[in-house]
């Protein structure tokens, strides 16, 4: 046998001093670490920046300006026949109630003795949200005896005035703006000063349905939250078991042959299919062929399930693959079946990866708009869907849809609401993933 140790340097060197090579390698090590840290910092900074932007733009959506004033319900306008019959009173449209409110505000301004220089006739009218008339009409129709009385109402103010209190609208922009005048702002300020107009937390944003372009102040994400919730229920119930089941079969049981390869490539390929194509599929299969209703969360959920499956399957397979074979041997060796081996030993070890796949898949599903375009969920929906399971078949919209819609609206007030909806969406996502994140931390271990 030859001498092993011939290449060893003779002189003994201190461990306290690093030799040149070690120093170089340590420098490389430090660089590498720094790269890693930088990568994380970049990612987290980006996140912080995006979240900051969203919060800055969107926090306004959670407060709203309200106006309280006494309204004289003019019987001549609201009940021309005078018989207080709700059915007949229903023929009076909201537009007339709007006039009643306008008159009440004028009266109030006169009563408060507020004089604003240059305030045109009718300028005061545009302070009140168009939504208020609908509220008032509903109130009157449910209690016809109110007609003729003076009632106190608390109504939303117009989006631009509300924008003034949030700093979005200033006297300067108002001067250029055709929809609001500086005098109106002065009036609003005066009303706010004496407490008639207040800005407070806006539950309506979370509970109300969408509103049209003319009433940004009344728009909320209530229907969208329900729609997203229903869809995610469907996705969660279907995609996780199906995805994990398919992965287990493909990774652990399927014979290693062309057929399995084909399925594998197929799944990887499905991940690359643009989401709108899943919309085309959904329209063709679930709506036209299967006859499910359009705009319904069940269809959205099914389409999103198909869309998230590849993500979950790819993640799960990778995780299953990384479980060391010795664990399988150990279990098989004591007489566990392959199925028992997988469910008792391999799956728990693969859990972090499965949960990551689920988190990413659900995040994607929750934020996706394009596939919903073709199955009718990118829609303006004002009616709340019923409770599940029937509600799954009622029209609903979804949070990303609401964001998408609002970013297209003309009134700048919707920008704030879109960001607000994104905040809601992120909170929704976080809630949805909290359990998964917690479980993942529990299952994470090294061996």
């Amino acid at each position, binding site marked *: 046998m030859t001498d092993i140790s011939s290449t060893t340097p003779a002189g003994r060197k201190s461990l306290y001093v690093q030799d040149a090579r070690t120093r170089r390698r340590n420098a490389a090590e430090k660089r590498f670490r720094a790269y890693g840290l930088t990568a994380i910092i970049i990612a987290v900074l980006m996140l912080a920046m995006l979240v900051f932007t969203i919060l800055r733009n969107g926090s306004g959506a959670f407060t709203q300006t309200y106006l309280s004033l006494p309204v004289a319900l003019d019987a001549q306008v609201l009940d021309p026949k005078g018989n207080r019959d709700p059915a007949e009173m229903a023929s009076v*449209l*909201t537009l007339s109630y709007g006039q009643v409110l306008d008159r009440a505000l004028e009266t109030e301004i006169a009563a408060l003795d507020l004089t604003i220089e240059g305030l045109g006739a009718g300028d005061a009218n545009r302070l009140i949200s168009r939504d208020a008339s609908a509220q008032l009409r509903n109130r009157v129709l449910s209690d016809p005896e109110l007609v003729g009385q003076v009632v106190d109402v608390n109504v939303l103010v117009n989006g631009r005035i509300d924008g003034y209190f949030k700093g979005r609208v200033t006297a300067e922009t108002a001067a250029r703006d055709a*929809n609001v005048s500086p005098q109106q702002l002065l009036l609003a300020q005066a009303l706010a000063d004496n407490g008639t107009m207040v800005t407070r937390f806006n539950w309506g944003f979370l509970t109300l349905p969408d*509103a049209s372009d003319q009433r940004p102040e009344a728009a909320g994400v209530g229907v969208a939250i329900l729609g997203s919730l229903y869809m995610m229920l469907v996705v969660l119930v279907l995609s996780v078991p199906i995805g994990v089941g398919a992965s287990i079969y493909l990774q652990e049981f399927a014979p290693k042959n062309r057929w399995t390869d084909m399925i594998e490539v197929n799944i990887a390929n499905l991940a690359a299919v643009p989401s709108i194509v899943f919309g085309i599929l959904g329209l063709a299969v679930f709506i036209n062929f299967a006859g499910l209703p359009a*705009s319904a969360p069940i269809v959205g959920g099914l389409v999103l399930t198909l869309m998230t499956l590849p993500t979950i399957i790819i993640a799960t397979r990778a995780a299953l693959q990384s479980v060391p074979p010795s664990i399988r041997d150990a279990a098989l060796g004591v007489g566990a079946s392959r199925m028992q081996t997988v469910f008792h030993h391999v799956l728990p070890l693969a859990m972090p990866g499965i949960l990551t796949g689920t988190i990413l898949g659900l995040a994607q599903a929750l934020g996706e708009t394009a596939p919903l375009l073709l199955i009718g969920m990118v829609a*303006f929906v004002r009616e709340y869907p019923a409770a599940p399971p029937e509600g799954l078949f009622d029209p609903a919209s979804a949070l990303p849809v609401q964001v998408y819609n609002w970013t297209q609206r003309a009134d700048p007030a919707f920008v704030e609401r879109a960001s607000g909806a994104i905040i809601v969406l992120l909170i929704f996502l976080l809630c949805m993933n909290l359990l998964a994140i917690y479980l993942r931390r529990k299952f994470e271990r090294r061996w």
Partner: protein
Amino acid sequence: QSRDQVQVAGSSTVLPYATIVAELFGENFDFGSPVIESGGSSTGLRRFCEGVGENTIDIANSSREIRDTEVAECAANGVEEIMEVRIGYDGIVFASAQTGNSFEFTPSDWFNALSAKVVADGAIVDNTAANWSEVNPDLADQEILAFVPGTRHGTREVFDEKVIMQGCEDTGAMEVFVAEMGEDEGEAACMTLRTDGRSVDIDGDYTETLARIGSSPNGIGVFGLSFYENNTDTLQVATMGGVTPSTETIASGEYPVSRPLFIYVKKAHIGVIPGVKEFAEFFVSDAIAGPDGPLAAYGLVSDPELASVQQAVADEVTMQ
């Protein structure tokens, strides 16, 4: 059991008007607010023509007239009776950043600024104009940068026909093109826009155009009238042929660039799906679509012949 809500799908230009109407309809009737999907006229009509039945839509919004091929497809799928309802007109305006120069355009200016080929001294040459003042000395000395709707938008069709084509004819380039390349090719050459980045296609919505003007203050964008009217604090509008766009000038036909908007109603669903006819009638009623109604307030140009439209809806008149 049948659906509770009327289902509407289609053009995103009609969408804001339809939502306003749907909201009011839901408040004032017992039918519940119709569901209004967006997704473009094409998708709307495709869904509309998929057949008759509960899981097809009742009304399609469209920013253009339905085409004959589409009518044929509809008929092939059993959708034979279609009511065409014109709800008003959409004005198309040119606007730039509030803080920048103001403009007074003619179609010729736009043709000379954006067309890929122009005529110089009787010869067809590539368009190299870099400045609006190069195109027309009366215009401000500002770099040419136009945000025009992408080829998916119906607005683009109007822009092409009523501005670029008009400009092509006005400047006399049309004759030269046609003489050089023949009828079809010549017209096509008129409407081919330059691709060197002076003319930027916008595939998104007006909000995107607005954002682009925000990040490139030199840009001039093409907007719908209602969008402009909601953003007068940041945008200033240019005149076209000396006319300032407004609902009045468009209704009177003075302002040239506008187009009609439609809703198509599936007659077979009237009486089957509750509220379909009521919604259509409500849509074109005076209180809503009239010159003092909320739609006009939002920027829809009221149809001068609204009364005949209302009558047609009441009588359930179908196409042809």
